[in-house]
C-alpha cells in the first residue's frame, strides 16, 4: 500500500553496473558491430552506390528515432515535472546522448551520399523541371548543408546539456535539486527547438527523397514513430536490466505499466497521424500528391504497405489493450520488440520505394521491385553498433537512475490505481 513518507534508500549495487558485468561489454560489442557492419557495407558498396545510400539512410533514421525519442522523453518529463518517470529517465538520457555520435555517423550522407539520394541535387534536372526550379531556393546543396548543420548542432547541444545536468547531480544532492530546477526551466524553449529541428530534418532527409511530393504532417508522422521507439527501447532495457539483477525495487511493474500505456497511446497517435496524412491526399486526389502513395502500393511494395498498416495499428493495439499485458515483463517486451521492428519497416517504407520507383522508370520495366538484401542488413547492424556503443558507454559511466533527483523517491514508490 502507499506510504506518504517519501524517502528511500537505493542500494548502490542495484544502480551501478558491477565490474565484470556483461553490460560493460556493450560498448565493445557496439564498436565491433559498427566496424563489421559499416565496413562490410562499404566493401560491398561498389556498383551498388544507390542501394548503399538508401540502406544507410534507412538504418540511420531507424536509430535516430530512438535517440530523438530519448531527447523528447527527457525534455517532456522535465517540462511537466513528471514524478513516475524518473526511475527510467537515466536510460532515456543514455539513449539521448547517442545523438552526437549518430550525427557523426550521418555526416557521410551529407558529404558523399547526397547525389545518390536526392534527385534535386542534379542541377540540370532541376532547371528542366518547373516545380523543382520553384523549390530551388530551399532545396539546394548549400542551404541543405547549413540546415543539417543547425539540426545536428541543436541535437548535440540539447542532449549534452540535459545529460550533464542530470549526471552532475549524482554526486551531490544539493546540486541534483538545483540541476533539476534548471532543466525544468530550460525544457520549454528546448521543446520548441526539438520540434522544429525534428520536423525540418524529416523534411530534408526523408521527404525530399521525392522532391515533388510534400506533406505538412510528415514531421509529426516521423515523431510518432520516434516516440514509439523510445518507449519500446526503455521497456526492453528496463526488463533486461531487471532480469540481470539490477534496478530491483527501483523500476517496478508500475513503471512497466506506464511505459505500456505510452506504447499503446502512441500506437493510436501514429495511426491517427498516418491515416490523416493519407486521408487528405486520397480525398483531394491531386496526382502530384497521390503519386507518393501510388508507388508504395504498387507491385512488390503492396505487401509491405499492408504489413505497415496492420503491424503498426491492429496488432499492437489489440495486444496492448488488456491491463495484464502491460504489467508483465515478457508480454510487454514482446510488444516492444515488435514495435522496434515495425519502426525499421516504417523507415524502409518511407525511404526505399523511392529508389525502386527510379529504377522502374529508368529501366522502362514499370515494375516496383523490392530488394531487401545484404546492404540493408549490414548498414542496420552498423548503425545499431554505433548506437549501442554510445548507449553502452553512457550506461557504464554513471548510475542507472538519477540518484539525487529531488523526486526520485516519489518515482520509486509510484503506484497505478
Amino acid at each position, binding site marked *: *500500500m*502507499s506510504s506518504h513518507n517519501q524517502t528511500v534508500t537505493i542500494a548502490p549495487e542495484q544502480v551501478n553496473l558491477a565490474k565484470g558485468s556483461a553490460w560493460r561489454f556493450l560498448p565493445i560489442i557496439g564498436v565491433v558491430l559498427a566496424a563489421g557492419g559499416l565496413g562490410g557495407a562499404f566493401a560491398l558498396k561498389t556498383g551498388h552506390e544507390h542501394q548503399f545510400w538508401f540502406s544507410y539512410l534507412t538504418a540511420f533514421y531507424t536509430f535516430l528515432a530512438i535517440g530523438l525519442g530519448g531527447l523528447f522523453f527527457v525534455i517532456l518529463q522535465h517540462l511537466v515535472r513528471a514524478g513516475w518517470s524518473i526511475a527510467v529517465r537515466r536510460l532515456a538520457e543514455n539513449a539521448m546522448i547517442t545523438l552526437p555520435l549518430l550525427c557523426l555517423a550521418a555526416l557521410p550522407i551529407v558529404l558523399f551520399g547526397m547525389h545518390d539520394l536526392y534527385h534535386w541535387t542534379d542541377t540540370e534536372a532541376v532547371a528542366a523541371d518547373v516545380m523543382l526550379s520553384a523549390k530551388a531556393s530551399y532545396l539546394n546543396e548549400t542551404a541543405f548543408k547549413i540546415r543539417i548543420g543547425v539540426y545536428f548542432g541543436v541535437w548535440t547541444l540539447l542532449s549534452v546539456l540535459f545529460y550533464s545536468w542530470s549526471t552532475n547531480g549524482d554526486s551531490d544532492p544539493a546540486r541534483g535539486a538545483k540541476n533539476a530546477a534548471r532543466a525544468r526551466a530550460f525544457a520549454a524553449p528546448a521543446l520548441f527547438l526539438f520540434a522544429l529541428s525534428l520536423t525540418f530534418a524529416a523534411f530534408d532527409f526523408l521527404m525530399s527523397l521525392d522532391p515533388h511530393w510534400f506533406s505538412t504532417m510528415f514531421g509529426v508522422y516521423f515523431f510518432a514513430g520516434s516516440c514509439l521507439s523510445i518507449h519500446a527501447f526503455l521497456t526492453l532495457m528496463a526488463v533486461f536490466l531487471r532480469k540481470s539483477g539490477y534496478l530491483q525495487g527501483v523500476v517496478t511493474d508500475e513503471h512497466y505499466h506506464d511505459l505500456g500505456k505510452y506504447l499503446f497511446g502512441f500506437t493510436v497517435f501514429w495511426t491517427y497521424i498516418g491515416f490523416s496524412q493519407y486521408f487528405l491526399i486520397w480525398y483531394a486526389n491531386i496526382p502530384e500528391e497521390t503519386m507518393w502513395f501510388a508507388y508504395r502500393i504498387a507491385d512488390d511494395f503492396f505487401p509491405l504497405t499492408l504489413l505497415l498498416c496492420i503491424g503498426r495499428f491492429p496488432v499492437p493495439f489489440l495486444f496492448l489493450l488488456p*491491463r495484464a499485458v502491460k504489467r508483465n515483463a515478457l508480454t510487454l517486451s514482446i510488444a516492444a520488440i515488435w514495435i522496434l521492428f515495425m519502426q525499421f519497416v516504417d523507415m524502409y517504407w518511407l525511404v526505399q520505394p523511392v529508389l525502386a520507383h527510379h529504377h522502374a522508370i529508368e529501366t522502362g520495366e514499370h515494375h516496383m521491385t523490392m530488394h531487401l538484401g545484404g546492404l540493408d542488413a549490414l548498414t542496420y547492424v552498423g548503425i545499431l553498433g554505433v548506437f549501442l556503443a554510445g548507449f553502452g558507454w553512457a550506461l557504464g559511466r554513471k548510475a542507472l537512475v538519477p540518484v539525487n533527483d529531488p523526486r526520485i523517491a516519489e518515482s520509486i514508490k509510484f503506484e497505478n490505481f
Partner: protein
Amino acid sequence: MSKPHKKKIYGLLAEYDSAAAVFHACETVRDAGYSAWDSHTPFAVHNLDKAMGLKPSVLPWIVFAMGITGASCALLLQWWTSTVDYPIIIAGKPYFSWQAFVPVTFELGVLLSAFGAVFGMLGLNRLPMWYHSLFNSERFHRFSDDKFFIAIEARDPKYDLERTRKLLEGTGATFVEEVED
C-alpha cells in the same frame, strides 16, 4: 397500543483512524471469509482492492463490447446508405470508399466506448442510489472527511453479531456500532 417497533439491522460499522489501519483490517476481514462487505475511505487508498480481495472489474469488457458495437454499426450504416439505399458517385470514387468512412467509424466507436464506461460504471455501482442505510449512522458522515470505515452487512452468511463485532474490534477499530437498515 401498537406493537414495539422491531428494528431491521443493516450490519456492523467499524471506524478507523488511518488508511494503514483500515488497510490491515480489510485484510483480516477478507481472510475471515466475508463476502457482503465494503470499505469507505475519504480518498483512494492504493491496493485496497487487493487487501479486500476484490476481483478485477468487468467494466473493461463492457467498454470493449460497446466500442466494437459502435464502430461496426457506424461502418454498416455508411455502407448501407451509400451503396444500397442511395448510391451516389462522389468525386469519381467507389460507392464503398472505406477511407471516407473511417472518421465516423472512429467517432462512433469512441462515443459508444465512453457511454459504456460511464453508464457501465454507474450500473455496476448501482448508481444513482437515493438511499443508503449507512447514512443512518451519525459517525459515518465523516467517511468523506477524515475517518475510515468498514461495513459488514447482516445478510452475509458468516454474519454473527457477537463474533463479527469481536473480529472488527480485534482489527483496531476505534468504534463499532450496529446500523439500522
